[in-house]
């Protein structure tokens, strides 16, 4: 067994296997990116008004060849709708991946632990009370308030996760309690809301891409552009954190700082997504788990892959929401829940000690 020739060969094989694995992961991430583009193209090509694929592309690149209403449908309805699916999927899934690592909990995601509910309560509060601040446009006011509520909820979750008394299950149960609490508070707001505000609030319960506008999209794009670089920069620290908290600290990682910055990113991502499309369930749970199964937990690959799987699943869900019931546009949240619930149950059931 200790023959130098065979150990030399085994060593070379192990190193080659590692390098191969790294190359494979780069390819998978790139492949996911390509799949996202396809899903995006499919998404803008489907909708209640029957437009052939060729017309859709014409509408995007040479609008002169189509009638004005057709151009409007493509540019102001389908395109923002499809872009919103990609951005919301990426935002929620990145938030979920970071939450699962930071809280050391495979069931963590903005939706399952009540962060999305908190965000929708914050957003509802802004709408019903008509909150406003000087120098801040209404486009930002609703997501800002959603962010404050979401951040408060993740701070609570984190405090609970750190007091070892709670355990992994305790955090999940506490998250469920948060979901109920904030849903009740939103219901209370609905009760006192004006007719107009009520219409807006009901839309959150559904989770729909229907309100995607270019200004909403730009806010979400800015939030992603700011958070993603910081997220990727902490990839090494997050990988080390998976090896255990004491070990990671002994490797020189300031865990408290890593946690708080990550929680800020999670809150910003979840809050902006929720403020514009309502609570969309399970994307933040399903996306990271698919990515982890394909790539493992080297966060250099896990984080970008989670964003892409989230974007892909969301984009396909958006397509499904348009074609499942002919002639009707289902709220996309219904579709993601139908995909997400079985995955959630599978994660709970597979092995007691793994949850």
């Amino acid at each position, binding site marked *: 067994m200790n023959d130098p020739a065979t150990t030399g060969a085994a060593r070379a094989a*192990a190193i080659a296997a590692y390098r191969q694995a790294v190359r494979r992961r780069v390819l998978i991430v790139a492949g996911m990116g390509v799949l996202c583009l396809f899903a995006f193209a499919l998404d803008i090509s489907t909708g209640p008004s029957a437009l052939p694929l060729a017309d859709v592309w014409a509408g995007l690149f040479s609008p002169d060849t189509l009638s004005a209403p057709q151009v409007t449908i493509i540019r102001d309805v389908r395109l923002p709708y499809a872009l919103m699916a990609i951005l919301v999927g990426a935002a929620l899934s990145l938030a979920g991946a970071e939450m699962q690592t930071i809280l050391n909990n495979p069931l963590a995601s903005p939706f399952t632990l009540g962060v999305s509910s908190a965000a929708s309560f914050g957003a509802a509060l802004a709408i019903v009370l008509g909150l406003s601040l000087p120098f801040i446009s209404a486009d930002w006011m609703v997501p800002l308030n959603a962010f404050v509520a979401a951040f408060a909820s993740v701070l609570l979750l984190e405090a609970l996760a750190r007091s070892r008394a709670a355990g992994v299950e305790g955090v999940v149960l506490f998250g469920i309690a948060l979901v109920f609490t904030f849903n009740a508070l939103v219901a209370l707001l609905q009760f006192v809301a004006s007719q107009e505000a009520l219409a807006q609030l009901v839309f959150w319960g559904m989770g729909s891409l229907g309100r995607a506008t270019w200004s909403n999209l730009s806010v979400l794009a800015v939030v992603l552009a700011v958070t993603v670089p910081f997220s990727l920069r902490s990839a090494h*620290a997050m990988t080390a954190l*998976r*090896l255990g908290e004491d070990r990671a*600290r*002994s*490797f020189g990682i*300031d865990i408290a700082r890593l946690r708080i910055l990550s929680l800020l990113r999670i809150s910003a991502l979840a809050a902006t997504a929720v403020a514009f499309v309502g609570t969309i369930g399970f994307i933040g749970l399903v996306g990271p788990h698919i990515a982890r199964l394909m790539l493992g937990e080297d966060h250099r690959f896990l984080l970008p892959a989670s964003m892409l799987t989230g974007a892909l699943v969301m984009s396909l869900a958006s397509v499904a929401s348009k074609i499942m019931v002919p002639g009707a546009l289902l709220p996309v949240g219904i579709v993601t829940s139908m995909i997400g619930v079985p995955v959630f149950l599978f994660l709970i059931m597979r092995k007691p000690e793994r949850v």
Partner: protein
Amino acid sequence: MERYGESLSIAGLSTGYRDRRIVQGLTLPAVAPGTVLSLIGPNAAGKTTLLRALAGLLAAEGSVRLGDRDLVGMALESRARLVTYMPQSLPQRVALTVLEAVIGAERASAVDRDEADRLAIVERAMDVIERVGIGHLAMTGLDHLSGGQRQLASLAQALVRTPRVLLLDEPISALDLHYQLKVMKLVHALSRERGMIVIMVLHDLAIAARWSDRVVVLSNGAVAADGPPAEAISAEVLAQVYKVAARVAPGPSGLQIDIEDTLPL
């Protein structure tokens, strides 16, 4: 690689948890470079607490000096270039291979390296994995390893950072006899090669006696005995600290320790 030449000295060190002090004003004469020091003592003597304080994981007062550097006031990241701690707990539910985990340990924060070493990170990680004896498991997931194999992977993660001070919390508790001996030999050899100071918590007195240059017996957070194994492990100390009746005599390799009975507490 350069040989480290700094001694570690601890003076007036107090540490513990929020509501209770575990170690109070502990002082240890300088630990010379290249020393393997074992911390032994009964349960709740403060062994792990002392190790975690030395690693910077617990707030401490007093002084811990490595050469002319004071570790107590040092930022975690700077201290991590000098000191690495291997906790007793092993990673659970992690989708990383052994090699990824060892590379991850090195990349977690900056380690002093020259350019060539930085580039050859995969090869260096593989060297360490082979030295702890699990080269054949390099591309196996941590989740698929036995407890003992994971403990060896954990040791490799600590060693890859080439610390000046290596703190090991029960590094052989999950290992069979072959690997217990292998790890002790490796730790001993590395301390000699690099001038690395090794401080480890051990439960097995015979192994501590055989493989340490120095043994510190802790009891209730204080030093009950300190010296070469033959001096620190005596029948009197064992009776006083562990409440056992024992016979200790020089043996063919190290000490011959016979624990004969328990004493009333």
